[in-house]
């Protein structure tokens, strides 16, 4: 790898948990408004950030709202006023935000949201799974999943750049696994403040658009010098076209995420695959497993071990779940005999949400790999290496026999 523009000795090494990694990233991003509700369930992100506010280390207005619904609403108001806005939540809190998630995306407001992935009630649980993130799948947000706390830091900064890109203008959710990342200490490297400021191009820039009753281009914000109306009633004669704008914007996201990943690599020496997918040992693999989030670390370890024993196995970590990188993933999976799709969540009455995407990914191939969905880790249930190895052995057996007995399997659950 070429030497990064910011040499490693200039990147401060600190020991933080995933929540703190996000808080430190937000601190460096010239965020104007952080509106957050700490509970349901609590994350340390907001605690740590309010310390930065209390110590005068940031110019940010911290709005300690009375609910997650209001947290996202205040972020919508702030972003519409032209501010860079951030909030964080998890599980039930994210579910309470649901209505306003759609509004944030549809008003094209590049808010950044850290989702500390945790299981939804009932029963109340608080531990890691991806049910919360899968629930916001269709809301119009970009969804990125990180593997470790370093990536949580890196991705939080990248998220502002991606969302605010003139071709995008969409909100971004940075997903980090509850407890496995949020509460686990890890060494991460931080950039100097001014480098982050420069990477983001300073404060948020507001895009301009032509408004007929102004007869000119105006900035899309609540501005007394060029009044515009945000969020009008939009019926069957225009709503569909506005949805098409969102659909088109989503199409432009993968290129931007990849470009930002490259820029980050030049700057820091760290990159995450092509930005949307992170493959490992896939080239000649007969069996490939796809996975999101921190479990990919365990899967990689098992792949390494099995490779050393001569098994042709590999994995792909899905870093970007929305928009879903169909084309990129098809290229990586097309040579495999069997693909195992790990989902830390399920759509009741159907399969895991990423399994459905991967079915769609592979359908157009003339010769398709066999597919098995492994639902695992619900409510924070551990997925240790021996369990992952068992899954690989099953998949290798399927590769040999060509027979899938059960399309939907459950890993690590009592019979």
């Amino acid at each position, binding site marked *: 790898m070429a030497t990064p523009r910011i040499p490693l000795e200039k990147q401060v090494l600190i020991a933080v948990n995933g929540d703190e990694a996000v808080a430190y990233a937000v601190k460096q991003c010239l965020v*104007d408004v952080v509106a957050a509700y700490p509970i349901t369930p609590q994350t340390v992100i907001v605690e740590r950030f309010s310390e930065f506010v209390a110590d005068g280390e940031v110019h940010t207005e911290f709005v300690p709202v009375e609910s997650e619904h*209001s947290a996202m609403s205040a972020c919508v108001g702030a972003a519409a006023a032209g501010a860079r806005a951030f909030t964080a939540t998890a599980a039930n809190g994210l579910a309470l935000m649901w209505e306003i998630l759609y509004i944030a995306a549809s008003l094209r407001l590049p808010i950044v949201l850290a989702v500390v992935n945790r299981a939804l009630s009932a029963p109340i649980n608080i531990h890691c799974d991806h049910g919360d993130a899968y629930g916001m799948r269709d809301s119009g947000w970009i969804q990125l999943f990180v593997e470790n706390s370093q990536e949580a830091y890196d991705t939080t900064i990248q998220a502002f750049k991606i969302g605010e890109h003139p071709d995008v203008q969409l909100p971004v959710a940075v997903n980090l696994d509850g407890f496995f990342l949020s509460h686990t200490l890890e060494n991460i490297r931080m950039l100097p403040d001014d480098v982050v400021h420069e990477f983001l191009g300073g404060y948020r820039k507001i895009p301009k658009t032509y408004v007929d009753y102004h007869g000119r281009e105006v900035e899309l914000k609540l501005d007394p010098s060029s009044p515009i109306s945000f969020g009008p009633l939009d019926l069957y004669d225009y709503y569909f076209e506005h949805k098409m704008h969102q659909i088109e914007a989503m199409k432009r996201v993968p290129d931007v995420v990849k470009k930002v990943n490259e820029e980050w690599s030049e700057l820091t020496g760290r990159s995450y695959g092509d930005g949307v997918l992170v493959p490992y040992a896939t080239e000649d693999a007969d069996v490939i497993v796809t996975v999101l989030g921190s479990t990919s670390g365990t899967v990689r370890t098992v792949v390494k071990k099995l490779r050393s024993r001569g098994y042709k196995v590999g994995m792909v970590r899905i870093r970007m779940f929305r928009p879903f990188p169909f084309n990129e993933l098809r290229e990586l999976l097309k040579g495999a005999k069997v693909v195992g799709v790990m989902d830390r969540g399920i759509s009741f009455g159907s399969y895991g949400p990423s399994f459905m995407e991967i079915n769609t990914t592979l359908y157009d191939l003339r010769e398709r790999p066999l597919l098995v969905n492994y639902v695992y880790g619900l409510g924070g249930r551990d997925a240790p290496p021996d369990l992952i190895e068992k899954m690989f052995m099953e998949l290798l057996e399927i590769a040999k026999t060509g027979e899938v007995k059960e399309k939907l399997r459950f890993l690590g659950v009592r019979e």
Partner: protein
Amino acid sequence: MSKSPYELVVFKPGEKRELPLTFNLRKLAERKPIILPGHRLCAGCAAPLVVKLLGLAMRGPLVIANATGCLEVATTIFPYTSWAIPWIHSAFENAAATASGIEAAYKAMKKTGRLPYDHIDVVALAGDGGTFDIGLQALSGMAERGHDVMYILYDNEAYMNTGIQRSGGTPPFAWTTTSPAGRVIPGKTQEKKPIAEIMVAHRIPYVATGTPGHWIDLIKKFRKGLEVDGPSFIHVLSPCNRGWRHGLNITIDICRRAVDTCYFPLWEWVRGKGYYLTDRSLAIARKPELKKPIEKFLEVQGRFKHLLKPENKHLIKQFQEYVDAVWDDLVSRAVNAPR
């Protein structure tokens, strides 16, 4: 597309123009309205009058966060808008939270030298459903956090936008589509939530009530609400001829009847000073014989038609007792009421 013949209310970056408070009709008529013609609110609706009076009270740059409701849907049917000032609608229950975010954003921009004005007033505008019921939590949060936002409730006493369903703001015995006056149950069986008193209990700097029928009083209160540092809450009665079942031409008359009968007293509460009766309500406190019986308010509205039947006289008596109790309590607390 040609430029609209209607003018926007524009404050150029750096402009330090403060609009004077005036009640001179000629001067007021010269003011650019903040809500422009062409909106689709019903004939006789009080909501645009409330907005117009806000425009006459405004002192400088002003931004509105509007809750879902009649006012929102009827003024912004895409690709049109009636708003001559910056305006946002997000959802039904979150006008106060949206306004909180806007206010926080301007503060952060001001701190970093990116706000080209001394100050931008932020106003949240919501109906009774968005305030008494689904929006109460966000409103309470905004008040407790002390955001410098003026929250205007235009209270038409039911969910009018969706077809006259009862709300926490609907008065007792009123007919609505979800509290019909039936053979057994005579309309709404509960009282009206004392929303302005709830806001007084938050100890925010300023709370007031008003009607567009008492326009000088209302403009004064809007201006005070904008001028205080911190949250203010203005509860405005907003007659709805569709829901109240009254003639299109008596909107203002009904406002006066509401105040003359003491159904909707005019008052303000200033933190550290207490309650003050204003306008016609002060006159009534000074001269109680001016107070009219509640029938004068009820008799012109179809939603109370069933109350006027001879067999329901006892309900009118109950209504009168309810109004009297609230009024007497208010007078006993008002600093400027005669003792």
